[in-house]
């Protein structure tokens, strides 16, 4: 039964794209991929822009300190099975930004990465190739297993919490508070 549905995974991967501090070169190339020359939609790919309905997370950029909690939050909001693609040299290792003071040297320190796409900036052909690889990995993944990134394992009792609570714990872990100006005139 599940084997039947698994076959169709490769036909309809929906992507979510997040920029964790890249120079936007790779972002432009992802946009170019969606354009008519490279046309990702012929593989059934839609840029959903919504983690809850996405299957592939495309991350560009070395993770800056402000982006990490956002990255984890988006990752946790994606339903399994899911794959993560690191687009560009910075996302893979930090690239030219490696060891800069506000940079965390690649996304695999935070979330498990399945495919690394090299290049500065990653060429559209490379991105398509990487996504195809990602789909192959994705086909083998199980939906039963909840993937909690290693960094979140530090949160006490993470196994017993549901995602909603884990996501709210992120604020504590990275000690970020978002204060909205409440101008009630």
């Amino acid at each position, binding site marked *: 039964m599940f084997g039947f549905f698994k076959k169709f995974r490769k036909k309809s991967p929906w992507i979510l794209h*997040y920029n964790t501090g890249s120079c936007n070169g790779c972002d432009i190339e992802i946009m170019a991929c969606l354009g008519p020359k490279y046309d990702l939609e012929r593989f059934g790919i839609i840029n959903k822009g*919504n*983690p*809850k309905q996405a299957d592939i997370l495309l991350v560009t950029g070395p993770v800056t300190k402000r982006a990490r*909690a*956002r*990255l984890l*939050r*988006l990752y*946790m*909001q994606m*339903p399994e099975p899911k794959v993560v693609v690191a687009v560009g040299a910075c996302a893979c290792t930090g690239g030219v930004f490696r060891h800069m003071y506000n940079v965390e040297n690649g996304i695999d320190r935070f979330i498990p990465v399945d495919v690394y796409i090299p290049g500065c900036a990653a060429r559209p052909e490379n991105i398509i190739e990487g996504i195809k690889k990602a789909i192959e990995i994705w086909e083998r993944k199980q939906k039963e297993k*909840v993937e909690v990134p290693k960094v979140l394992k530090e949160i006490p009792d993470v196994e017993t919490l*549901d*995602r*909603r609570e884990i*996501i*709210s714990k*992120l*604020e504590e872990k990275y000690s*970020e*508070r*978002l204060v*909205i100006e409440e101008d009630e005139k």
Partner: protein
Amino acid sequence: MIAAEILASILLPWISALVIYVLNNHRVSVFLTVLNFVILTIIGLHLWFSVNNPITLHPPHLVDWLLLVYDYGLLLYFFKQGIENRNPLVSVLAVIQIFLLSWVVLIRPHSEVPNIYIDKLTVFMYLIVGFVGSLITLFATRYMQDENPVREGEFVAILVWFLGVMNFIVSVNNIEWFFALFETTTLASYLLIRFRGDTVSVNNALLALWMNQIGGITILLALLFAIHKYGITHFSQFGEHTQLALFPLAFLSAAALVKGAQMPFHRWLLGAMVAPTPVSAILHSATMVKVAPYLILRLSPFIKGTLLAKLIVVFTGFVFVVTALLALNETHFKRILAYSTISLLSLMMLAGTIGTPITITVALMLIAFHAVAKALLFLEAGVLEKRYHAKTIYDLKHIINKAPLTVFFILVGFLSMTMVPFAMFVAKWLMISEMSELLSKASYIITVAILAIGGAILTVLYLKILGLTINRDEESFRVKIEKLPSLYTIPNVIYVVLILIATLFINTFLVYFFAPITQSIIGYIPPFCEGLSVCIKNLQLPFWQIIIAFFFVVFFPIIAHYIHFKTDRTAEYSCGEPVKPRISTYNMVCLNKVSTYFESISLALFVLVLVIGGGML
């Protein structure tokens, strides 16, 4: 026997009101209101089965004189209120009425036509007053415990007395008596609106007073002309003259339009919101405003098809759409309900004025189920106010986390006014179909457009408010169903059960309940089929569709409370940011600019109804 029953249904509320007022005791009030509820309902049901032909009664001549004296006293009281509260308009209008009334008394002929006239329509109104109205008084006893226990007796007494007045007004045949009772309802509403006694209440009460007095003046003018020209003093005599001038009918309809708070006069009903909530409930559902469609239905056979009828159709249609639109702009929960009442009242009058058998039935259905739904909603508004301190629709946000049962009742109340398969939807659907039928005879295109647009607006309005209430962040199974005082819950449960039963067995109601009333009004039964599916001529609403839609609308919300999918839960999408969500709703603020135009146009239309409809040109 029947005469005794009629007398009982009129007098019982008057007597109970007196007792409640004098004793001012919570238990006595509860006992008497329950007694009223039971006895009035039983009498209504019994009368329903026994009154097949119109019954007439001749009360002693003394009553006539008593009422006249009472009338003068009442008008003098209004005059005095105008002086005391420095509102010259009220006094002037009272003086005009005294003058006109004296003129009527001078020229009125002696008439042997019976003064009390009971037919199915009257009994229908008895049932609404007895069943829907008494429950509100029952609710009011508990409400006043939360509000102001000292004045409970006074408050409940006025409400119960109001029921008696209402029962009286629908029984009379004499237009002069009708005027007296019309003014009595004005008095009752005046007393109730100014009940809290603060400045706003008093001002709004005076507003209601002078606006309703205009209705009184138009009745007197109509009566004066009818006596002078045709010697008519009773409603039943209109049928005897075939070549009737439209002047008296136009002025009587105008009285109905004023009482029904149609557009230029809608402010008094909105102002009534300052009173304790049971007042709104009783004004909007069972009494007061329902005099308007009742009067239109009484006059319907005589004005049907005339120029007057067409003007009233245009006027009420305009008000129907415009007030529904204005309601979209409101934020106060009770004001929204008030606007929707005005809107639906215009629909009732529109249906009544067109006067085909089906539209008369539609008007009756709307009167009955609107009474129940509005009573339910206003009582819920009272509960919200007293228990959850929610007055504006913004206070209703996330209220499902605290009060799932209340939300369910509100849902039933709102959806029953607009959504398939509820009875009021069936009424609207019949109306649209009937109008399409008329399209092929003459063009009623405006009516059709009004129905389509107004229906859509009301649907959106109710969905918008429901949307705020059901916004939640908790799993529903973690929310306990709230416990409310039984006197709060019982009336609502009865209303909801009635709505649900009526929805399922709507055709039974149509055939055995509404069709006979239509027959008594225009002497012709609309050809409804038997069985559970609604069908008439080539129209059909099969029972399987009713039951499935019923399942969707009623059972899904109930199931939703208990169902629990065992999947992972996650937070809402917020662009990856830890933003605390804050939800609200939209208003059509762009309407603020045009609302004055709406009022001017409706005033012009109202004048047109009087001038052209009354044959003054």
